[in-house]
């Protein structure tokens, strides 16, 4: 299993789509990570306050609080000033990418992605 080469991390997956969350959850758990889940920005902030999270993976379009607002809020929390936050986005949404970056997002992963692409991207930000 090449996926066990890096240390286990606590990863927060934020997406309003259960199938996306399920995919992220299954892939990352199989790779030995601990995966926390949230279905929108508000839930994600609650989780982030109570759990130590090493990496956040978040959708952009979500009800209640979108991903970009969530990034802005997270960056204001002292524990999350430097935490990698990756946005799950579509290629077409160039403006949103820029907006996300300006809000403080670390990078992005273009949808659709498959488990291998997800793991490869995670490897880029986990020490």
């Amino acid at each position, binding site marked *: 299993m090449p996926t066990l080469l890096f240390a286990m991390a606590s990863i927060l997956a934020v997406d*309003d*789509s*259960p*199938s*996306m969350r*399920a*995919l992220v959850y*299954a*892939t990352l758990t*199989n790779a030995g990570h601990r995966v926390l889940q949230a279905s929108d920005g508000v839930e994600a902030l609650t989780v982030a306050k109570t759990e130590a999270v090493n990496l956040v993976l978040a959708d952009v*379009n*979500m*009800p209640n609080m979108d991903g970009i607002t969530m990034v802005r809020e997270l*960056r204001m929390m002292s524990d999350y*000033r*430097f*935490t*990698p*936050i990756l946005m*799950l986005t*579509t*290629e*077409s949404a160039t403006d949103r990418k*820029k907006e996300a*970056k300006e809000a*403080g*997002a*670390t*990078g*992005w992963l*273009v*949808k*659709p*992605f*498959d*488990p*291998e*692409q997800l793991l*490869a991207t995670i490897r*880029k*930000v986990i*020490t």
Partner: protein
Amino acid sequence: MADHQPLLEQLKVVFFEEADEGLAVMESGLLELDPGSADSEAINGIFRAAHSIKGGAGTFGFAGISSFTHGMETLLDQIRSGQAQLTSPRIKALLHAVDHLRLLVEAARSGGKVDETRTDAVRKEIEREIEGHDTKVVPAVVATPGPDARPNVWSIIFEPNPAMMRSGNDPYLLLRELSSLGRATIEVDSTRLPPLEAFDPELIYLSWRIHLEGPRDEKTIREVFAWVEDECRLVIERQAAAPEVVVAVAPAQTNPTTPRPPQDPPVEQERRKTDLGSIRVSIDKVDALVNMVGELVITQSMLGQIERNFDLGKLSRLRDGLNQLERNTRELQESVMRIRMLPIRFIFSRFPRMVRDLSDQLGKDVELTMLGEGTELDKTVLEKLGDPLVHLVRNSVDHGVELPEQRRAAGKPGRGTITLEAFHQGSSIVIEIRDDGGGLKTDRILAKARAAGLIAADVQPNPEEINDLIFSPGLSTADKISDVSGRGVGLDVVRRNIRELGGNVSVSSEPGRGTTFTIRLPLTLAILDGQLIKVGDQTYILPLVSIVESIAMRPDQINAIAGRAEMYRLRDEYLPILRLHQTFGLAGGSQDHAGRLLVVVEGNGQRLGITVDDLLEQQQVVIKSLDTNFRRVDGVSGATILGDGTVALILDVAGLIAFAKGEGKKCSTTPTSSGRPWEAPQRRVDNI
């Protein structure tokens, strides 16, 4: 990667469920939109649904669905950003696309096929609506450029902005990734480092010069820095070509998602029944269940303690423990049953669209109001309720609500109203379909019924009985067969379907004011609160909800009418009596009512007195179907196994009432053995 395939296969089920929900959200959302006034939250919701389906479809390998949804997403994005106006052609195009998307999803689920020319036509309809559609809509696919053939040596200068780490990017990780592209030599430039007292550990003062042998093109290198391109100075220069030893290993952004071959040319779309399958349960319900199990474990250990060194002094504690166990069991049972409950919204959601389409088609103006959409009922009931409800709603649009000019002539507003309402009543769920149309034409129904031989010429039924005739097989009251209803499937089928679910459907109507269909269903099919009754040497079960009261019979209050039919005078009301001994043909049934009890039951708005020998305890019983092992028997809804292992039949009150009425009418004829439908199952069950 091959070892991820099983995972994706498993998760496809989740994707399909989600796609179904997304489609429902899009459809109901679109129907609620008014052209011109854009409700941004509604449009956002629709957009998100399209967006999720597109993303999921791409991930799970349904390239066709993903690219089809792309156009919808683009149009919706333009509408929500105000770039495009919300017009009714746009809403219509989106609705068409939702319909077609449903076919595509269904085909992907069942492995069926969808007419490709149709897919193209719908896609083009959407594309025409996209603002500035001449700029071609291209599905979001990452372009993979053909790699430059020459292996190369690169010189890279990477100078991050001091604040780059604030976006969570670590230069070390970027350099690590860059090194993975080939053979790298990295030099650090520390000239910008400030004196220690001015040093801010959150800023980056270093920059790097990298000599890299490997990547064939600049793009591969730029991709490493893609996330930070606005947060650093990056210079990439190609040095002289390296000798041909280096084999570039660029694990770059290829796109391993093998796109599905385009779906095959037009063949009939296959639709698979998706009755079975998984169920999505909210976390709350699961949590409640876990709590319950926790309490059960506590009770169990408590009982365990009592059992050790048991003496009679602990009897009361044992009783407490058993009571607690009983409560736990009941709560656990309720929680488990609740998992199977789904909101009726799942079926209601299809109606706004249907009513709109139908009324357009019929030239009517109908407004649909839906109430109690959050009312939950058993999944099995829900799945089987769809078709009967569709039929009744169609019926209301077609036959109930009149044409606008007729309505105005009758002094009513031209726009008719159909109300769908669901609510709980005791342990049943009631669904009403009300229209404010012309009401049932009792004279016409009666004439047809007489013509069909359903009612003898000399019998004059009351209005309720006449209304009930519309559920008889072979009675269609529509003057002309329209495209909408009246295609041979009648209300008799509706009633049969509802009865199969253990429920009933009735109709009430007021001339000129409208018609109301009322469906009553048990909350769940599997469990019932029952009253055990003793008749002769047999035990039966009456659903507790149908019992109004029980009284000791006073022989002087019994009146025999027209021979065998008997009425009991209860306060100011006369109740028909059904003697279960006789009806069931049980031994030892004397004519004498003295000492017996009369249980007053109610069903379908009518009351009946049932004579029994004794009332036993009340308890929840698990319903076992008789139909699967035997056949449907009027008056008996099922059987259960009692605590002592004996089998008891569960009585169907509505059926008993119908039977008692039939008995009254047929008083002069000799009852045949077929008039005693209980006998056969009775023997059968006794033999178990």
